[in-house]
């Protein structure tokens, strides 16, 4: 009597899973155990690295990798420990996925060599990760999450139910509420736009920023002629822009990234006759890719970057040179942020090792050091974290595209 196909199949499945399981437990090999005086220490990196998100995720990853490589070259922890990145992709089928992010964080948590992590890139992925890092006490610094609810308010509290008094989540970039309202002020007061049309990409960053901008702009006395959301993978914006043109705005505000349509929208603005109407966006369109995709229509665009004027910070210049030499490509809008996040973590780990008498520190030690970061020198200025994990004294640089290149126009201090 043979097994029915039912149980044969289930057995096979279980065998397959067991094989997969054995292959996975290999990730913990070579790791130093707490208290050891040598071994490998890893910094986890969780970013979207494939598909459409790759164009913004990979440059970000490179920033962090550069920091880790430089630390290795400059003698990390006096050479006692080896520092390695542990890179995981949270993009599934080309789009950032919260479940994949959660899986990646679980992988980091299960690996005792991982003492801190950089990421995630997207705010909705952060929502699935923060409860896990909070539960495990693993520090994470995001280079780019902007959603307010990750650090302040009721929503943030609900993400920290495991240890409500501990914060494991930090970010080096400004929140939507600050960037959005600053952009509104720039638009209304500094650039003098009175009526704008708002477009966003209907994603967590873009919509979040656009909603805040919309409300703040109206609060200042301006008129928002319309607020539309584009669909993902949209390539034809001519109908939308024709509608915009008919309303005669002073400017068009875009909440979103180059990779979700920023460049294409600007290019098609030129096609429908809106080339002379200024285009305004946040750091999502501050990469070189934007100018490439917008083509001739790029001129007349304004964007803000959540860092001081990089041309005036020597650390920024050397970062850009090192990045270009290492990766032979332009920096992305968040490369410097990821670099900074990784550097902060590296410094925290080194200090923890020293405080522990040269032995392997715990995640809690590293977390403590990260939380007390103030005035950290970086390519994006002096970075520190407040009690919520947000960056202190944020600053916004306003850029204007002239002759195909962005020029610094103004630097705006944001009130804490």
């Amino acid at each position: 009597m043979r097994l029915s196909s039912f149980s044969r199949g289930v057995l096979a499945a279980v065998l397959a899973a067991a094989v997969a399981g054995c292959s996975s437990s290999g990730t913990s090999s070579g790791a130093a155990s707490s208290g050891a005086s040598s071994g490998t220490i890893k910094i986890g990196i969780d970013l979207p690295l494939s598909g459409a998100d790759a164009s913004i995720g990979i440059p970000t990853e490179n920033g962090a990798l550069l920091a880790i490589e430089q630390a290795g070259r400059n003698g990390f922890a006096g050479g006692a420990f080896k520092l390695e990145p542990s890179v995981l992709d949270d993009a599934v089928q080309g789009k950032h996925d919260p479940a994949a992010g959660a899986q990646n964080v679980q992988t980091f948590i299960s690996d005792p060599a991982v003492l801190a992590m950089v990421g995630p890139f997207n705010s909705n992925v952060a929502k699935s990760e923060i409860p896990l890092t909070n539960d495990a006490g693993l520090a994470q610094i995001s280079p780019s999450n902007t959603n307010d609810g990750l650090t302040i308010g009721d929503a943030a509290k609900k993400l920290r139910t495991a240890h409500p008094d501990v914060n494991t989540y930090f970010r080096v970039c400004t929140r939507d509420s600050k960037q959005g309202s600053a952009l509104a002020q720039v638009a209304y007061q500094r650039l003098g736009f009175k009526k704008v049309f708002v477009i966003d990409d209907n994603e967590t960053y873009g919509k979040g920023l656009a909603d805040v901008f919309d409300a703040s702009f109206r609060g200042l006395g301006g008129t928002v002629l319309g607020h539309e959301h584009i669909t993902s993978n949209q390539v034809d914006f001519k109908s939308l822009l024709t509608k915009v043109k008919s309303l005669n705005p002073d400017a068009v505000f875009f909440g979103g990234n180059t990779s979700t349509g920023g460049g294409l929208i600007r290019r098609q603005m030129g096609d429908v006759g809106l080339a002379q109407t200024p285009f305004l966006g946040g750091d999502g369109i501050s990469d070189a890719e934007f100018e490439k995709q917008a083509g001739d229509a790029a001129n007349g665009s304004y964007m803000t970057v959540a860092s001081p004027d990089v041309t005036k910070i020597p650390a920024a210049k050397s970062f850009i040179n090192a990045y270009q030499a290492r990766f032979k490509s332009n920096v992305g809008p968040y490369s410097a942020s990821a670099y900074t996040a990784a550097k902060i973590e590296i410094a925290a780990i080194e200090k923890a090792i020293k405080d522990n008498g040269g032995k392997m520190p715990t995640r809690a030690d590293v977390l403590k050091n990260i939380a007390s970061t103030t005035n950290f020198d970086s390519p994006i200025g002096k970075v520190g974290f407040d009690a919520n994990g947000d960056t202190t004294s944020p600053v916004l640089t306003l850029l204007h595209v002239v002759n195909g290149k962005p020029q610094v126009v103004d630097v705006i201090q944001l009130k804490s």
Partner: protein
Amino acid sequence: MDVFFQQLINGLSLGGIYALIALGYTMVYGIIELINFAHGDVYTLGTFFSLAILTLLGVDSVVHGPALIGVLAVTILGAMILCGLTGVIIERLAYRRLRNAPKLAPLITAIGMSFILENLMLYWRGPSPVPFPQVIPNPQFALGAVTIQAKQIIVVLLAVVLMVVLQTFVYNTRLGKAMRATAQDKDAAQLMGIDINTTIALTFLIGSALAGAAGFVSGMYYGSTWFFNGFGAGLKAFTAAVLGGIGNLAGAMLGGFLIGLIEAMTTQFISDQWSNVVVFSVLVLVLIFRPSGLLGESLPNKV
């Protein structure tokens, strides 16, 4: 009111591209009752091939003078030939074996083919949109308060011209007759001495070539192309083919323009974020209430 007419122009231009893609869908479905999922990606390949040809010719912006005609001819024909060949290869590799299999099999294979093509294009030019040269000087004509661009006229013109050429071919030539016969009854056509393998390959050749033309036109119209273009455009073009009446060439054209107009008008009078939902709802409604489409005949259920 002016906005309405302006959106009309937008819709017709967008629709022209859909119409060209829809022609390919409708031809293939008419002859072997297969929804060629990969057709949308052949259209995207058309833009990529055009881009490659233009780069080879050294064109990176507008071409002036008599050279323009040469460039256009070479690029459009080149894209059409290359895409046509791609279509024939796909049919030969993936669909021919499954001609008599249950409908599930070729449909799933087509989806798989679509994925493969998309990934190949991802390797070719990367995940971000790629700029496409202007090629044509783009003077604008004012008609009252409405502006029409030369590019928009060309899109619509090309779609109509190609459809007329296709219609002539299908109804006035022997090969076309063979196609119609095969579409009507494969076995009978074979009995009449028609080589259905060649006829079907020819159908794919022509359908894919049209998609290639659509590709060039789209690249020129938007100024950029992207590996994932084909998915949405393909789905909407299929909606257009169904709307017009699957198997009916004029129907594909009509359906294409209609879908383009529906998209433009939805964006104008409702909002952009609902335009896809509306288009796909049209698809669903047409398939429920009038599956034969606007210009199609009611096909009896074969017993």
